[in-house]
């Protein structure tokens, strides 16, 4: 960018760079820096106040006993000792979340992909199908969960009513420790609209000539799907898996609402601390629910901070894993422009 070498070569500009010009340049550079700072200022404030500082404070609080009313008391590693040794709720919560990540998340991605492939091949009504499969995503999570708890309620719910008509005795769904998580999985499969739309757009974006070339070579629809579509849209699939894993790590709303609403003749409001999160039998006590319960029902802020440190470590590992491969899915444009 600098014009200095060019200036020395040209005879009529022999005096190199005048002090006035240099200071003008410096001023311009400062101005540019200030402009960037001004544009970035909302993020700088937001990032430090609502992200950077809380992360540090959280690390500190995790070594204290803190109930929000009195000042935090330093208790060393006691919270972590309890977390990894004493608390009998941690392992079930972790394994519930792992269950969700290992079973519900892959199902979501597969289901969304399958529907997207079928919609992309539909000869008629692709737009209508897309709308129908997307619509449930819009339903507010609380409303959708209430709806599903009703649909699957064992007494008068339509699902078991319909099942009994074809001679099947339906399970207790949200009221059964074995079926509560599968019921939530069904609920999450109902809401795969976003992933489906993303897959659909990616599938329709696959260059036609690739398909035509494969077809000339005698590849059928399935082999084209496997050898053409899949490799071409793999960044999008990776992206969707990442999104689903992140959502799975923070899975809270549906499990919370279901466990407060599903018990037969549910008494007590959702805010009532007597409500047992994770109903039935802790089978829906996912890790974020445990964190919420400790932090905001029992006000064990210090211990909840320790719980969230563990979540931080895990999600940071996932995030870094993703960011290392970021150029595969993020349009990370650097010096190129």
């Amino acid at each position, binding site marked *: 960018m600098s014009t200095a070498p060019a200036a020395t070569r040209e005879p009529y500009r022999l005096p190199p760079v005048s002090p006035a010009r240099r200071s003008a340049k410096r001023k311009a550079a400062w101005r540019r820096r200030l*402009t*960037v700072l*001004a*544009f*970035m200022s*909302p993020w700088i*404030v*937001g*990032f430090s*106040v*609502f992200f950077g500082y809380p*992360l540090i404070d*959280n690390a500190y609080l995790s070594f204290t006993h803190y109930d*929000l009313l009195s000042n935090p008391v330093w208790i060393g590693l006691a919270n972590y000792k309890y977390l990894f040794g004493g608390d009998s709720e941690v392992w079930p919560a972790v394994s519930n979340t792992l269950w969700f990540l290992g079973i519900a998340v892959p199902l979501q991605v597969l289901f969304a992909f399958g529907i997207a492939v079928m*919609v992309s*091949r539909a*000869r*008629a009504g692709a737009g209508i199908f897309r709308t129908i*499969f997307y619509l449930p995503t*819009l339903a*507010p*999570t*609380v*409303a959708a969960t*209430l709806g599903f708890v*009703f*649909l699957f*309620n064992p007494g*008068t719910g339509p699902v078991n009513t319909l099942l009994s008509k074809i001679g099947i005795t339906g399970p207790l769904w949200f009221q059964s420790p074995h079926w509560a998580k599968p019921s939530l999985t069904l609920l999450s499969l109902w809401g795969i609209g*976003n992933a489906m*739309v*993303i897959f659909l*757009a990616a599938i329709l974006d696959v260059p036609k000539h690739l398909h035509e070339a494969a077809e000339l070579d005698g590849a059928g629809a399935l082999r084209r799907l496997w050898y053409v579509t899949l490799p071409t849209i793999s960044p999008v699939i990776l*992206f969707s898996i990442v999104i689903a894993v992140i959502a799975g790590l*923070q899975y*809270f709303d549906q499990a*919370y609402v279901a466990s*407060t609403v599903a018990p037969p*003749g*549910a*008494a007590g*409001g*959702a*805010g009532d601390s007597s409500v047992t999160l994770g109903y039935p039998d802790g089978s829906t006590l996912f890790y974020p629910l445990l*964190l919420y319960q400790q*932090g*905001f029902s029992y006000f064990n*802020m210090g211990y909840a901070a320790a719980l*969230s440190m563990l*979540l931080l470590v895990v*999600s*940071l590992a996932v*995030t870094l894993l*993703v*960011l290392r491969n970021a150029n595969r*899915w*993020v*349009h990370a444009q*650097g010096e190129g*422009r």
Partner: protein
Amino acid sequence: MATAVQVRTPVARRTVPRAVRRKRLLVAIAEHSVLIVLAIMFIAPFVFIVLTGLMTNAQSLTSNLWPQPFDFHNILEVFKEAPMLRYAWNTFLYASLATLGLVLSSVPVAYALACLRWKGRNLVFIGVLVSMMLPPQVTVIPVYVMFAHLHLVGTIWPLVIPNWFGDAFSIFLLRQFFLTIPPEYADAARVDGCGEFRIMVSVVVRLAKPAIAAVALFSFLLCWNDFWGPLLYTLDNPAHWTLSVGLAQFRNLYTVNWNLVMAGTVVFMAPVIVLFFFAQKAFVEGITLTGVKG
């Protein structure tokens, strides 16, 4: 369109053997049937929710599926049983204030990340990505403590204020879109002596209207549907409940009748679905924006 097809037909085409054609037809029929069955399953919950919402009290205790008679009264009953209008107003206030702040604060940041060149830009972008991907539970306790010290717990302000300082996901989306705008536009304006702020407002923002609309739409919906935030901050103060929190209490506090709960659910879902049909294009474009390389 039609002419384009006609132009192509004279080109010699491979004739497809009849057996292959029949097989293709059968596959197409099979696929469409699966699609239709799945579509019915996706619609069914809505149908049952609405139908139950229109049942009488007595009937909602039975396992009948069809309301006899239709009781449209329930919708009104919901507003009488719970301060739904109050909840709706709170939700609307939260969603619109948060969205306004989010757009106003995220656009300049995305502009600086996409259209200005400066040292450390990529590093900052990675910071944005990290804060976007970490679950909110990671920072929730100190943030809650902070708002508790400010005596803002029990109001919707803790939900609104952070949005006025840039939202990572929106910054990410807007940056991706701004990068697709040819830099020549901005450069031309710069040569003409236009300041960066004016370039952003009158060049980039104008070209990025669809993306900004999508971001605003998503933000509004996310807030409208949000449960985690309002649960955390407004639970102790029913005057500030949003629809999410209000509805979650509905079954417990007011009634054991599924018909009223479902009527409430319908009232909560309806605005969003109406909005979708008005702004379907913005939705689909917006979602696609998130998934496809910018």
